[in-house]
């Protein structure tokens, strides 16, 4: 009798765990979907602006790489371009939104591991985030 009881409680515990897992998967799935949609909408707006402003001009010479860090290569430049309705600024904001989708996914996984009290994987996930972060500010540009 006692054994049966523990079995039942174990089962309910398992179902709650499965349900929690499913909830987390739904949150991650939605974050990816919304993130990608938002990035795509911003890119379309920026692209439309770009084609209206520059559509008939000859295309920039892409055959030689320009190493002189234009304004679209740093956050300040990108956002000032964005708020001044410069097409390149709007498109780069879309790129940043796109870059944030995998990062958001890692952050959500971290929260998930912390909630599960899986400290080993909370540490693993933090390490991954740390590598991405440190690399983005220290790598030579």
């Amino acid at each position, binding site marked *: 009798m006692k054994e049966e009881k523990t079995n039942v409680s174990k089962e309910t515990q398992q179902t709650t765990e499965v349900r929690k897992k499913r909830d987390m998967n739904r949150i991650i799935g939605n974050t990816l979907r919304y993130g990608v949609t938002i990035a795509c909408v911003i890119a379309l707006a920026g692209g439309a602006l770009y084609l209206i402003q520059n559509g008939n001009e000859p295309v920039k010479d892409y*055959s030689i790489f*320009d*190493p002189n860090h234009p304004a679209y*290569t740093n956050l300040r430049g990108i956002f000032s371009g964005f708020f001044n309705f410069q097409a390149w600024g709007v498109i780069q904001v879309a790129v940043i939104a*796109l*870059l944030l989708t995998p990062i958001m996914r890692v952050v959500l996984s971290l929260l998930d591991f912390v909630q599960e009290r899986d400290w080993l994987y909370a540490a693993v996930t933090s390490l*991954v985030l740390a590598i991405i972060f440190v690399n983005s500010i220290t790598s030579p540009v």
Partner: protein
Amino acid sequence: MTVLTFTIILLIGAYLAGLLGSLTGLGGGVVIIPLLTLCLGVDFQYAIGGALVASIATSSGSGSAYVKEGITNIRLGMFLEIATCIGAVIGALVAIYLNNNIIAVIFGFVLILTVINQLRRKEDHENVVGSETARRLKLYGSFPQKDGSVRHYQLTNVGGGFGVMVVAGALSGILGIGSGVLKVLAMDSIMKVPFKVSTTTSNFMMGVTAVTSAVVYLQRGNIEPGIAFPVMVGVLAGALTGARLLKTLDVTVLRKIFCVAIALVAANMIYNGFAGNF
């Protein structure tokens, strides 16, 4: 060529890249780089930026569907992501010293590997006896199968898989592609992970690896707005169409055509790289 013509060509190309990418399970980068460099004469440096955008778009775009199926092994992906991220950091550093011709040759060899991987017979690794390390790291997993039953699996050779993942990350840091090939190879051939789990987990990892190098390449100026916009929109639209078609279409013939095309592009890249044409 006017901006409008260039954008339309790139939009169509990126759409096809996304479509082929989701039908064959490869990232968009594999098609985007040859399209930009060989067809449109764009510098490899800009093509790398375009490929990074394509890789992340493919990973996040198809990721939302994969997550729902619950096949992806997040622990496995996250653990190996340490290796690919370190690799991507190294790759982005090494890339500074590589000229376009060397990059083209490396890309050509990765393409050849891609073809071999597509033609290889897929094993499903039933009844793998897992290693102690894998068990301690909680890398064993389970996933729901089509008939509703849950399949449990174990895996082995964590060290070997980790090592190949560092190389995969480095290549992705140099080329901007997701290196899905090496990721699947590491998980499938070395660690004996079931094929479905390898592919979906590799897709998850692709986005994270690509973002590690993308944050650097964005600051270096490799991600050009005029290229990023058509690539992002085109690849996403193509991947969406592909995901729909995949349910109704038999892709075996398409895969074979794709392999021949990639092999030709690989030969072209390697030849032009050695000839110093980039």
